């Protein structure tokens, strides 16, 4: 997929508003997820997405920011197959997808352990495998000791950790995040940002992350995409030059703030346009 023909059309679509070379990360890395001229029209006539072409290389972590209702979530649902697009093509291996929702969507009648085991159960893992992997993931996200708690006894941050552990248990190669930390307080959110980066570096998945927070997008990602108001189009793509692992001090760095500022201006244009 390295020489995917759509790489070229991506350039055309975006009309050179950014450095097209930025589409590919290190040379040789394949494309893990490709949207080619994807459009989405809902039965009620709403045009949610228009001509989205976006290629995400293996191992990239891409964030999407955009005005409310611009179709960011719709894009994830299309990528994962939850809803089919009405125009264009999506290229992705759906057998190994991770997906976290805006809320943790834990099953309230299952304890943390049972929730983390759920997807493996659906995939037919044996009981021992499930137990062993679930315990690993629970330890990894820092929920050790809470295996036998019901979700209603957990804080919002802990629920989200359990939700991450559930997806990580399948060791996904492409991981999609639909505003996972939007409902959390800022301190928890920043901590989870760091933990998620650590998991990203450890597991090496390709990330597609949707958020409302510009600092979060810049802090997490190798690339930030700004989408327009509905119908959603890609307006800008920003490369984030900072090396991983990223330290919390980065948040106070002048270059970091400058980049956030640029994204912010682009987003403001997106809303006003």
């Amino acid at each position, binding site marked *: 997929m390295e020489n995917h023909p759509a790489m070229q059309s991506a350039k055309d679509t975006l009309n050179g508003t950014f450095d097209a070379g930025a589409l590919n990360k290190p040379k040789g890395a394949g494309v893990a997820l490709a949207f080619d001229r994807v459009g989405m029209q809902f039965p009620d006539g709403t045009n949610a997405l228009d001509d989205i072409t976006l290629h995400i290389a293996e191992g990239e972590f891409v964030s999407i920011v955009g005005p409310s209702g611009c179709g960011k979530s719709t894009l994830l649902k299309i990528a994962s197959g*939850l809803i089919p697009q009405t125009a264009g093509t999506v290229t992705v291996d759906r057998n190994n997808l991770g997906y976290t*929702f805006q809320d943790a*969507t834990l*099953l*309230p*009648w299952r304890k943390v352990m049972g929730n983390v085991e759920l*997807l493996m159960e*659906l995939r037919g893992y044996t009981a021992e495998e499930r137990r062993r992997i679930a315990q690993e993931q629970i330890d990894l996200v820092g929920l050790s000791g809470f295996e036998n708690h019901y979700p*209603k006894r957990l804080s919002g941050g802990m629920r989200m950790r359990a939700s991450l552990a559930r997806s990580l248990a399948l060791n996904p190669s492409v991981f999609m995040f639909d505003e996972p930390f939007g409902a959390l307080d800022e301190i928890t959110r920043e901590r989870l940002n760091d933990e998620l980066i650590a998991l990203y570096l450890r597991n090496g998945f390709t990330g597609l992350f949707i958020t409302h927070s510009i600092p979060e997008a810049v802090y997490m990602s190798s690339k930030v995409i700004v989408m327009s108001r509905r119908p959603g189009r890609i307006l800008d793509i920003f490369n984030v030059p900072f090396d991983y692992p990223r330290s919390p001090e980065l948040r106070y760095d002048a270059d970091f703030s400058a980049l956030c500022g640029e994204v912010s201006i682009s987003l403001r244009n997106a809303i006003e346009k």
Partner: protein
Amino acid sequence: MSDVPITNAQVFQPVPLPKQQSALMRGIITILPPLIVAALLLLLYAWIRSNLAEHRLFLMPSAAALWDNAFSRPEVWAELGSRALVTISIALAGLAISIPLGIFFGLLMYRFFVLERGLFPNIVALQAIPMLAVIPLIQTALGFGFMPKMLIVAKMTFFAIPTTLLLGLKSVDRGAIDLFRLQNANWFVMLWKCALPSAAPSLFAGLRISASMAVVGAIVSELFFLAGKGGLGQMIINSKIDFKYEQMYAALIASTLLSVAVYLFFSWLGNRLFSEWHESGGKEG
């Protein structure tokens, strides 16, 4: 920092926390009000009784008469026991029909939208048929045995089950369904691992309603089917015929207790099953 008063400003004083109530006090506060209301109702009963004409006093027996002619007699207790057993078996047999059938129809309507469209209004219509109006027909068609009574209970307890189940199934978190869809889980897996557990508390609310209706239904059915050895409903009719109003009251009290007991059992069961995880659960989250 001069103390120049701000115009229109008021000073608000702190309010100390109220003293913690002792366990005894809290117990009294929970138990006392219903007892007081019950005592008032008994007083009302006594007052109405005191205004009855002499020849109508039998309609409202006194406590002493109730004791002398009913509750002090072992044979009345024996009869109450054996008849309560008959009533409860009619009620349970009715539930044994209506619960599985109700669950089946609830699932059917959940699975196929067109069946929901077709069935739901008719289930409502079925519920709207007055039970007493159908009883003569049932008597003619099915006779006076156990089966028609069981069917009457089944009809009276059916409605709450498919409706509460369907409501519960349709309120399943969309995200949870998406979670299963992302793993290509089939409908039955989704139902078993996601929709049914999620709908269970709602279904149990329906079961509680049905269960207490079942005892009422069993007694009503017996009022119309007097052949053979019947339950508490038959005892009520027989006491009327024999002019044993104290025993009628005893049967009335017994059927009320039976109904409450069945309701409490299902409440307890529901609480046991769901309190740990469900929002309505007793434990603090």
